[in-house]
């Protein structure tokens, strides 16, 4: 089962390697991991997309909590939540492909954020499946470069992850 785990961690050097080291040492999967400081610069928030049986996910959250610098851990995928990922795609945009590419961006509510005579850079935000669908929808030969941020997530409504 796929799970999205959010955590708050002290913004100290080496904090990221403690988390990633834990996953590799214990053989847990990491599908994606994002990290950046919060509004309080002494703290970072991480979103980890992982997968495993219920027992493994329980161990993952317990082991994360055990790290001395981890302040709070929540499996946000346990209930209603929102996930977003940013993807920036550089595509070839010449001849008839140029119009087609613009149309495709519009359909996916993506934005063209850089233009040259031969290429577009397209910014697209959404959940993972939307980004995957966009990649599937465009001609592979036209993709010059893709970068994805990994998933950010937040609980819906009253569910708040804060100190």
């Amino acid at each position, binding site marked *: 089962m796929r799970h999205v785990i959010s955590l708050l961690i002290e913004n100290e*050097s080496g904090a990221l*390697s403690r988390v990633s080291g834990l996953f590799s040492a214990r053989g847990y999967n990491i599908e994606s991991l994002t990290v950046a400081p919060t509004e309080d610069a002494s703290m970072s928030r991480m979103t980890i997309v992982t997968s495993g049986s219920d027992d493994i996910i329980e*161990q993952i959250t*317990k082991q994360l909590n*055990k790290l*001395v610098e*981890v*302040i709070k851990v929540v499996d946000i995928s346990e209930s209603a939540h929102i996930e977003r990922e940013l993807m920036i795609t550089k595509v070839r945009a010449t001849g008839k492909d140029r119009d087609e590419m613009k149309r495709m961006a519009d359909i996916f509510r993506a934005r063209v954020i850089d233009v040259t005579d031969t290429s577009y850079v397209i910014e697209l935000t959404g959940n993972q499946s939307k980004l995957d669908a966009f990649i599937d929808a465009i001609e592979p030969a036209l993709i010059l470069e893709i970068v994805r941020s990994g998933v950010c997530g937040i609980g819906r409504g009253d569910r708040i992850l804060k100190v």
Partner: protein
Amino acid sequence: MVLTGAEIVIRCLQEEKVEYVFGYPGGAVLFIYDALFNQDKVRHVLVRHEQAAVHAADGFARSTETVGVALVTSGPGATNAITGIATAYCDSIPMVIISGQVPTAAIGQDAFQEVDTVGITRPCVKHNYLVKDVRDIATTIKKAFYLAKTGRPGPVLVDIPKDVSMHKCEFEYPKEVSMRSYNPVLKGHQGQIRKAVQLLLEAKRPMIYTGGGVVLSDAAEQLTKLTRLLGFPITNTLMGLGGYPASDRQYLGMPGMHGTYEANMAMHYSDVLLAIGARFDDRVIGDPANFAEEPRKIIHVDIDPSSISKRVRVDVPIVGDVKEVLEEMIRQIEASSARPDVETVGTWWKQVDEWRRRECMKFKNSDEIIKPQFVIQKLWEVTGGDAFITSDVGQHQMWASQYYRFDKPRRWLNSGGLGTMGVGLPYAMGAQLAHLGSQVACVTGEASIQMNIQELSTCKQFRLPIKIVNLNNRYLGMVRQWQQLFHGERYSESYMDSLPDFAKLAESYGHVGFRIEKPADVEGALREAFGRKNDLVFLDFQIDQTENVYPMVQGGKGLTEMILSAEDL
């Protein structure tokens, strides 16, 4: 008061009432050693290899209720310390390791004796720090001691670059430490404890299974009280020996791979299992699938939530300090009039006693050749069962744990989790320094002892009258045993050739050495050794080469599939 970083380090150790630091100097810690030189409160024990420094500090901590402290230099000093740190980590031993680092400006430049100590130690410490500013030393060391001894204990490393130890700042030792990210739960959940007590009182086939957590939490007294109050059978794991008096009738011996028949059967066929400060380790329950086949309710008390429901599903988890939880259990039982049903528990005891009658610890003694079990029995007799016993890793470790009956906690020091050969002598050094005047014996083998034999020199320098009980079978015995049983008797590289004359070797270090070849001489040699109060005596027992450790549960098998003796093969 304005002090250098190095002076601050030593002042911090003084504030923490550290008696002994085990260490080895080098370039990056020269200022710290200079600060050490100028005072006499913290005493330094100069070892002969950094691994032994960490083990000795670890042994000191295991035999007392204090935090062990080791001091090593950068680069090879730190890498040599790794095995010691990992050993302490696996057994949750509270320690602070201070390591020197190259100057901050040189970090990342591949400087002489530079290694990423914080990176290398990260997977085998509870936490670690690189101190980049002299003003952070005092708070960091305060945090290190706090982290090491609270919650589930463990080693904490503080890496200090040379320039930081040289810089100066105002010193004030923080009185308290608070960390928003670290607040271990001490008190167990009242409702959960009530549920557990209810289950225990209604149990038909109850069993108590305790581990190192009881020793670390100094809860032997509470455990004994609860066990007697309930009248249930109890087993202590390898790490938990001495948590409950081994000479008591309710004690069934050790469980697990080389545990007793009665302890393993009672674990397996219990209907309510109370696990305290233990972790259902693979050497204890064998195959978890086999263990789960028999239905039972499991109550698990542990300070570390990640130990609960890790290998087996638990019905009543109780997160908290073992001592506090046991006190609450006792309080609840004493406050109520309900007691376990005497008849029901009596029927269970009849079954347990039937298992006991198999006498799984019996061995064939000999007049011709020394049996290792016999040596340990005699060691127990000669020391009145009251010595601090350290061991290395292998067959001798199992025989010591099986045949020396520990009635008190913190008397048995061994590497249970990591299984580190070479810990025995440094553990004995730590235990002897912590208990000057007490009997300390290191039970070892001719292979293990050679992994830190250089420490005989340290023992001479610090006049440590340790008795080394070397069970010499000219084999890596446990490896040989597995090769005999599971690898078609192909004894690949498990023999020991070109051994030194250990008695003479000990003598060359200025100690006393005996070589004992006959069973009739065992007791006399032990008595003479322990009679020499001021001498380290190396007792080199030539034992039966082919003796195996029984009972035995093969790796990956279930607790009920035991080989009880050579006849079962």
